[in-house]
Structures are given as C-alpha cells and as structure tokens.
C-alpha cells in the first residue's frame, strides 16, 4: 500500500517498509485485532462486562494464564514445547506447602525450596532434551505424567489426604501472602498481585526478546539450531535457560495459588498446559519456532480471559463454552495467518 520510491538498483530485501508495513509485520497484530473484536462483542452483549469494576476480575482470569504464557511463548520462539507446565505450577505450590509443613520450617524456606524445585524441573527437561535429541513434546509429556502422579502420591504420603495440609498458621505465611497474594483497590477496580507480576514479566520478557543478545539467540535457536550453533550461539545453554524460565513462571503461579487459596489440590492443573500453548499461538507464536512475541502471548491470554468471563457475564449457557472457545481460537489464528501473509507480501 505504501508507495515505495526506491532506486531501481536497490535490493528489495532491504527496502524500508514504511510505517504501516512495519506495524503489520509484527507477530502480535493478529492477536490485537482479535482481542479488540472479542472485547467489542462482549461489550455489546453483556451489561456486566461494561462495568469498570469487573475489569479486575477479567484481568485476573487472564493473568492466571498469562503468567505461564510468558515463559511458554519464549520457549516456543526458541522452537520447543512444554506439556508439563500445568501440573508444574501445582507441583511448585505443593512443594512449598509440604516442605514447610513436614519439617516445621518457616514458610519462606518452603517458597525457596519450591523455586529451586521448579528451576530444577525446567533444567532437567532442557538437559534431557539436549542429551537425547528427543522431541520436546515427548520429553515434557514424560515429565507431565511423572509430576501428575508425584503431586498426588507425595501429597497423600506426607499429609495423609489429597490436598496439602494447612500452613496458614505457620511462621512467615502472613508475609509470604503479602508478597504473592496481595490485592489493591484503585477506585472501583480491584487489582490482584498476579496481574501486576504478569505485566512486569511481560515487559521484561519482551525487552529481553526484542532488545538483547539473548533475545537474538532465542530467535536463532528456534529458527535453525544447527545454523545457530555454527555461528557460535550456545544452543544448549539457551534451551536449558528457556525451560528454566518456564519453571520460574510455574513457581510464580504456584506461589500465587498457594497463598491466595491456602491449600493446593493435588489433582489440579491437568489440561492447563494446552491453554498456555494456545495463548501463545493466538499471540502469533509459530508451532515451528523462530517467530512470535511475548506481548502477543499476553494478548492471547487476555482473549482467553475475556471469553471465559464474557460468556458468564452475558449469562449464556455454559454448555457451549468450549465450542465457543474453539471457534474463537480458529478465528484468531486465521486472522493471524492473514495478517502475516499480508505483511510478508509487502
């Protein structure tokens, strides 16, 4: 659309694209359009969606997906997959609660133990992947099953039931709650801590990906690992680092869930991993790696949150929820594809 007046002998690969072209070449544009469309739809049909006070609830729903989607989108740009993310968050919370309760330690020790545990799970995933050359789909599927079983078995072994024992009467619980599960009212809107942490993580993740050498490395290993290695990118370290980032996100979410809801249910988190991946995909991450953005994944999570809450605020029959979600996802990804094609054609 922009009239390019480039000199005829110039190489077309380095021709400036113009503002509109640059904008449409961003991976998150499709998700942005999708998010606006979903917002418009629910603003039109659901009166409760229009009240400002409910923004907090919608953002909170999005943040519970978004926190994980930060790590997952970075990992997907790096060309890998993680199926163990849903149960990993639950495992992290369980680890903190059981460590503190079983040994009678300060809750903060449990929190630190959970952080170490989550990072180790991530490191193990990455290490096994690089050592064996198996696809990450398989490696993390294994981790997923191992954690799913361990969540249940260890919780019952230590606490005697299927949810973690109460730790709210232990030292350090109150201060940990103030760190991981505070909420603040800004006028009519209640903002929960997870929303703020999510936005901070999105900004940091996005800056790292777009503005640093590490970001370039992530794109490189996702695009073509062999070529990246040939030009001196530390492929193994980058991939392990990415899995550990996912581990960190799982810890963040796990801690929030533990300190907002006081106990962890050992069976939860199964199936969530796909929702994180889908949020990243709606946000423009390719399943093949090498392309995507953290901001896009945040928008994907927002679409998810708005849809979930919007169906409820509109008072529609929830039986249709997943059907509606499926249609929504297909539309969002089609918009993505269309925008990307348009951008590439310019």
């Amino acid at each position, binding site marked *: 659309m922009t009239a390019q007046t480039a000199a005829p002998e110039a190489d077309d690969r380095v021709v400036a694209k113009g503002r509109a072209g640059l904008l449409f070449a961003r991976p998150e544009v499709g998700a942005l359009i999708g998010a606006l469309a979903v917002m418009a739809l629910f603003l039109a049909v659901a009166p*409760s969606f229009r*009240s400002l*006070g*409910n923004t907090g*609830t919608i953002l*909170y*729903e999005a943040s*519970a997906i978004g926190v994980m989607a930060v790590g997952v989108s970075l990992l997907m740009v790096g060309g890998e997959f993680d199926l163990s993310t849903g149960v990993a968050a639950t495992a992290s919370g369980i680890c903190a609660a059981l460590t503190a309760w079983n040994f009678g330690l300060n809750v903060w020790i449990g929190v630190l133990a959970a952080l170490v545990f989550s990072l180790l799970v991530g490191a193990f995933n990455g290490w096994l992947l690089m050592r064996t050359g198996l696809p990450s789909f398989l490696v993390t599927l294994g981790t997923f099953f191992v954690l799913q079983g361990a969540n*249940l078995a260890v919780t019952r072994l230590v606490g005697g*039931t*299927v*949810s973690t024992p*109460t730790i709210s009467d232990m030292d350090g619980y109150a201060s940990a709650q103030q760190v991981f599960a505070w909420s603040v009212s800004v006028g009519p809107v209640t903002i929960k801590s997870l929303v703020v942490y999510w936005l901070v993580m999105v900004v940091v993740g996005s800056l790292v990906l777009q503005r640093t050498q590490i970001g370039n490395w992530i794109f490189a290993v996702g695009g073509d690992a062999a070529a990246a290695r040939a030009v001196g990118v530390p492929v193994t370290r980058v991939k392990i680092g990415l899995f550990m980032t996912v581990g960190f996100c799982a810890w963040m979410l796990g801690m929030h*869930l533990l300190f*907002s*809801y*006081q*106990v962890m*249910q*050992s*069976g*939860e*988190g199964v199936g969530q991993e796909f929702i994180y991946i889908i949020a990243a995909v709606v946000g423009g991450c390719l399943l093949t790696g090498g392309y995507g953005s953290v901001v896009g994944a945040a928008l994907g999570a927002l679409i998810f949150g708005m849809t979930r*809450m919007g169906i*409820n*605020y509109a*008072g529609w*029959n*929830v*039986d249709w929820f*997943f059907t509606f979600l499926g249609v929504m996802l297909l539309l969002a990804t089609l918009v993505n594809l269309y925008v990307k094609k348009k951008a590439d054609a310019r």
Partner: protein
Amino acid sequence: MSRFSRVSVAATSAMAALALAACSSSGGKQTEEGGGSAGGVDTPEMTVAFITHAEPGDTFWDQVRAGAEDAAKKNNVKLEYTANPEGAGQSNLVQQAVDKKVDGIAVTLAKPEAMKGNVEKAVGADIPVVALNAGMNEWKDMGALSFFGQDDELAGEAAGERLTEEKAGKTLCVIQEQGHVGLEARCKGVAKTFDKSEKIYVKGTDTANVQSTITAKLQQDKSITHVLTLGAPFALIAQKSVKEASSEAKVATFDLNDEALKQIKGGGIEWAVDQQPYVQGYQAVDSLWLRVNKGASVGGGEPSFTGPAFVDDKNVDLLLED
C-alpha cells in the same frame, strides 16, 4: 434433465416413505414429553447464580441442575448455572456473581479453602449464599445461610453397615477421581463399619479404562463378592466388568441416575446410597427465594440432610413413577 428430476422425485418420495416407516413405536423424545408444570409464584424476578465444581457431562450434576431449574421455574427465578472443577476457577465464578450483583448464590464447597475468600466477599456484599453437596464442615464459618447435602463419611458408614449385615465378603471401593476428598471420605466411611473393603482407582473420564481396571481386578482376585462404585455411571460399567470377568460379584453404588434405577428394578444392581441430588439443587434455589422474598432461612444453622437414603428393589418403584 427431465430424467434427473424424475429420479429425484422418486428418490424424495422413497425417502419420505422411509422416514415415515422409520418412526419408532416406542421410546424416543415424543414419549418423554408432557412433564407436569408446577404452579408458579408472582414474586418479582430474581437472579440466582448456581456455581458447582462439576466436570462437564456428569449425570449426577444433571440432576442437581434439573432440581435447581425446576425450582427456578416455579419461583420466577432467572438461574445462571456455571461450573468449574478447578478450585481457583470456581472461586472466580463466585467473584463474577458478586460483580453481576445477583440476588442469591448457591455454591458447592468441594474445595473450601479456595472458595472461602470470595464466598465471604459475597456475604459481605449482602448477597444471600447457600451451600450444597460439599462443604458440610465449612459452610457456616463462611457465612452461608443453609447447607443441603449429605456427609460423605456418614454415607460411607451406612453402606458399610449394610455390607456387614449382608455378610459380604471382599468388597471393592471404586474411586473414579484420584485426589477427590469427598470420594476418599466415602471409602473411609465404608472401611470404618466394614472390615473387608479395598480401594481401587480408575480414571472416571475414560470409560474403557474403568471397565478394564475393574475387570482385571476381578479376574485376579476371585474372592471379591461386591463391587461398590461411587457414582451411577460407574455401576453400569462395573456390571459389564463383572460379566466379562465371569465373576459372581454383586454391584452396589452411591448416587443414582435413570439407568441405574432401571437396573435396581431389574436386579442388576443390588442397592444404591442416594443423596438425592435433585433435592439439593431444588432446595438451594427454593431457600434463596424464601430468603429474598420472605426473609426466612432454612435449617436453623444446622445442615439439612438430603441423604443417605437406601434405594433397593423394595422402594425403587416410588422413584420410577415419573
């Protein structure tokens, strides 16, 4: 072209004839029509949010919802049913109901710790809350008005007593969802009053797995005389397993659905411990209507028990009447 149109006319009439001939003389939707509609009230419309921890597609929760909807129809209530099996998600649904400023909330408290904060918030916002099905020990502290349900452990004890009376041998207690506190409590109750029970775990969302697991267990251990399932759909699957393993074991169950009722009548299932889910849903909505319109509360601060009630071949006809 004319030949084509003639063919299509012939085809169409053949189809019509087939369709007519294909009408079933029994069963189907038409025979189920004509449920009695109850008398209505003329109070102003109110909105009730009905929030459960149901897994999608569970027959038990269909009955709870049916009871709630019938009570809603009668009381001029707009019922908004939502469900989420994950604690945090269900809690968020309560928050949303508060956002929507509904007139009443009926909620299940299977994961009381997760629900506590937002239920208290609802109570703080002067929305009447009643609890049902799960959370017998916690509903009162959260400020809920009433509770409708049964104590899982007591129901388990009742089943155990019955097994002891019947001089049952080894009995399998089949848990269909690993990590579910209520189901664990039932088997614990059974073990309290009956000494030969053994727990096995199956994956409730995977019918093939349920059947093969029970079959394998029956084949491996011939001394099993009873299979006790914790949900009606699983009793029906267990019957298949018993046949497959050519075992002599009898099937008994917690909770009911239409098919299980027919089986009890026909002798395929021995008995069921019923907590009357329809009553739970109905009472929850009804009590909210009473609260909003008459300022009344039900239960006097004690849980209102909807079970356990035994259903067997002696009283099954009462339930099969409709």
